[in-house]
C-alpha cells in the first residue's frame, strides 16, 4: 500500500459519509434522524472523556457540568426573543441576553468557549488531586453547577428550564462536529503533547523526570475536553429543544463513562462504536418497557426495565471484558486492508 493511500481512502470515505448524511437528512424519518444525532453527540462526549481518562489517565466525573454549560449557553443564545419572554415569565432574563438572538454557529462557538473556560477554572483546583479524589471533586463541581443553574432564576429560568429552543441541530451539524472533535483529538494524541499525555497516564513520576510539566499537560487535556464537551451540550440543547437543570445530574456523567468503557478506554474507534451501540440498544430495548405477549403469556411491561438490562450489560463489561470492544486499538485502513486481503486470499486458494 502506498504512503498516501490511507489518506486518500479517508478523504473518499469522508465525502461518501457526508453525501450519505445529506441523503439521510432529506429522506429518513425524524425518529431515525434523532437517533443518529444522539449518536453523534454521544460520540463527542465519549471521545472527550477518552482524552481525559483514556489518554491522560485522569478520572473525571464532571462531564455533566460542562455539558450543562454548553447546553445553556447555546440555548440562551439561540432562543428567539419572543420565546425568551414566554420562558422568563417569573423573573425577566438579565440585560444583554434578553435582546440578542444569534445564529447557530456563533452560539455553538460560544457554548464551546464558555465550557472550555469553565474547564480551565475547574481544572486548576481539581487537577491538584489524583485518582478518586479528583473524580469526586469534579463530580462536586458539576453538581454545584447544576445547583447554581437551578437557582439563578434570572439567567437560567431555574428549575422551570428553557423551552422552545430552535431545533438547529441536524445530521450535518452533529456529525460535522463529531468528526471535527475526533480529528482534532486524534491529531492532538499523535502530537508530542499526546505522547506527553500518555506518559503521564503510564507513570506520573517518570513523566515528570523527563521534563513533562504534569500540571500544564493535564490542564490542557482537561480544558480541550471541556471545550468539546460543551460543544456537544450545545448540539444537544438545539436537538431536544428543552433543557432543565435535572437533565445534567451526575447520571449523565456516568453515562459518558459507561459509553467510553464499553468502547474501550483509550480507543476513539471504540468510543464511536460504543456510542452507536449504546444509543441504538437503548431504542431497541424500548419494547421491554411495554407489556409483551410471548406464547400466549402476557408479561406486564415495567418502565425502567431497559435501564436494568443496561446496568447489567455495563457490569458484565466492566467485570469480564474490561478492555471493552476495542481495547486500546484503533481502526486503520492498513488493518482493514490486511483483513480483507487475508479473507479474499483464502477464498482464492480454496477456489
Amino acid at each position, binding site marked *: 500500500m502506498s504512503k498516501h493511500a490511507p489518506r486518500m481512502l479517508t478523504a473518499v470515505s469522508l465525502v461518501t459519509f457526508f453525501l450519505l448524511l445529506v441523503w439521510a437528512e432529506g429522506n429518513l424519518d425524524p425518529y431515525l434522524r434523532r437517533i443518529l444525532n444522539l449518536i453523534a453527540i454521544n460520540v463527542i462526549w465519549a471521545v472527550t472523556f477518552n482524552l481525559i481518562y483514556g489518554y491522560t489517565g485522569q478520572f473525571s466525573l464532571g462531564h455533566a457540568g460542562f455539558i450543562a454549560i454548553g447546553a445553556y449557553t447555546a440555548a440562551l443564545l439561540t432562543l428567539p426573543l419572543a420565546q425568551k419572554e414566554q420562558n422568563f415569565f417569573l423573573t425577566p432574563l438579565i440585560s444583554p441576553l434578553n435582546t440578542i438572538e444569534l445564529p447557530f454557529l456563533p452560539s455553538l462557538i460560544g457554548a464551546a468557549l464558555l465550557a472550555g473556560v469553565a474547564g480551565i477554572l475547574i481544572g486548576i483546583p481539581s487537577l491538584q488531586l489524583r485518582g478518586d479524589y479528583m473524580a469526586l471533586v469534579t463530580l462536586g463541581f458539576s453538581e454545584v453547577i447544576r445547583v447554581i443553574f437551578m437557582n439563578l432564576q434570572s439567567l437560567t429560568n431555574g428549575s422551570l428550564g428553557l423551552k422552545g429552543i430552535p431545533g438547529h441541530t441536524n445530521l450535518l451539524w452533529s456529525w460535522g462536529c463529531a468528526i471535527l472533535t475526533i480529528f482534532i483529538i486524534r491529531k492532538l494524541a499523535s502530537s508530542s503533547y499526546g505522547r506527553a499525555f500518555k506518559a503521564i497516564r503510564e507513570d506520573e513520576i517518570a513523566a515528570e523526570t523527563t521534563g513533562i510539566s504534569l500540571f500544564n499537560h493535564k490542564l490542557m487535556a482537561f480544558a480541550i475536553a471541556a471545550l468539546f464537551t460543551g460543544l456537544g451540550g450545545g448540539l444537544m440543547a438545539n436537538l431536544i429543544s428543552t433543557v432543565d437543570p435535572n437533565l445534567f445530574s451526575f447520571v449523565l456523567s456516568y453515562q459518558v463513562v*459507561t459509553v467510553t468503557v464499553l468502547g474501550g478506554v483509550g480507543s476513539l474507534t471504540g468510543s464511536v462504536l460504543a456510542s452507536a451501540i449504546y444509543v441504538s440498544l437503548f431504542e431497541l430495548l424500548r419494547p421491554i418497557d411495554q407489556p409483551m405477549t410471548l406464547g400466549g403469556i402476557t408479561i406486564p411491561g415495567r418502565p425502567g426495565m431497559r435501564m436494568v438490562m443496561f446496568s447489567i450489560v455495563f457490569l458484565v463489561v466492566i467485570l469480564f471484558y*474490561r478492555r471493552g470492544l476495542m481495547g486500546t486499538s484503533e481502526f486503520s485502513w492498513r488493518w482493514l486492508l490486511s483483513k480483507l486481503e487475508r479473507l479474499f486470499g483464502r477464498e482464492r486458494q480454496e477456489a
Partner: protein
Amino acid sequence: MSLDMFLQHLANGISLGGLYALIAVGYTMVYGILRLINFAHGDIFMMAAYMAFYGVALFHLPWYVSFAVTIGLTAIMGVVVERVAYRPLRDAPRISALISAIGVSLLLQNVGIVAFGGRPKAFPRPALFALEWKFGEIRVLSLTLFIILITLLILVGVFYLVYRTKIGRAMRAVSWDFGIAGLMGIDFNRVVALTFAIGSALAAAGSIMWGMKFPQLLPLMGVVPGLKCFIAAVLGGIGSIPGAMLGGFLLGVGEIMIVAFFPTLAGYKYAFAYLALILILLLRPAGLLGRIVEQKA
C-alpha cells in the same frame, strides 16, 4: 434567634448528623481497607429502607422484627455486592473497581425503580417515635432524641468492635497494609466481607431512622444522602472512623444551621456539602482527622 430556637435546631442538626455519621462510617471502613469509593453504598441504604417498609406493610411484621430482619438482610446484600462486583477486580487498576461501583449503583437504582415503582411510599413511624416531648419551651419529637441515642450507642459499638476486639485489630491491620496483614495470617477476604457486612448494617440502621424522620421512600432516595455522607467521610478524613463520625455530625449540624440562619440560601443547601468537600480536599486533603495516605497506583 432565641436560645430555644437555637437548641431546637441543634437537636435537629445532631440527629441528622448522627444519621450521616452512621452512613459515613460505612464508606470510611470500606475505603480504609479497599481504597474504594463504594458508590453503591447510598443505594444499599435505599434498599434497606424499602425492605423495612415491605416488612411492615406487606408481611405485617411488628416493626422491631422487620427492622432487625432488614439490618441482617442488608448486611448480606453488602457482602454479596462485594463478592460479585468488587472482588473480581481486586487486581485490576483501582479505577475499574470505582467504575464497577458506579455500575452497581445504577443497577440497584433501576431495580428499585422497576420493583418498587416511582411513586413515593410512606414509611411507617411506630407510635413510640411519634411522641412530642416538651422541655421548657423546646418541643422535640421523641424520634429526634431516639435517633441521637441509638446512633451514639451504635457508634460506641463500632468503636468497641474496631478498637477492642481481635477481628477489629485484623481490620485495622489490613487497612494499614493488606500485604503484610496477609503475611501475619489474616484472611483478607474474610475481613473485607465483614467490613462490607458491618458497613451495610450501619447503613440499614441509618436508613430505617432516616425513613422515620423523612417518611417518603423513593428509588433514588439514596443518591443524595449517599453522596453527602461520602463528603462527610472525606471531611473527617477518609479511612478514619472517628473522622467519619465527626464529619457526619459537622455536616448535619452545619446544614441545618445554615438554613436556619440564612433562609434565603436554602436553595443552595445541597451545594454547601460539595463546596465543603472541594475546600477540604484542596486545603487539607487528608481531612480533619485523617492521616496522609500514599495513593496506591
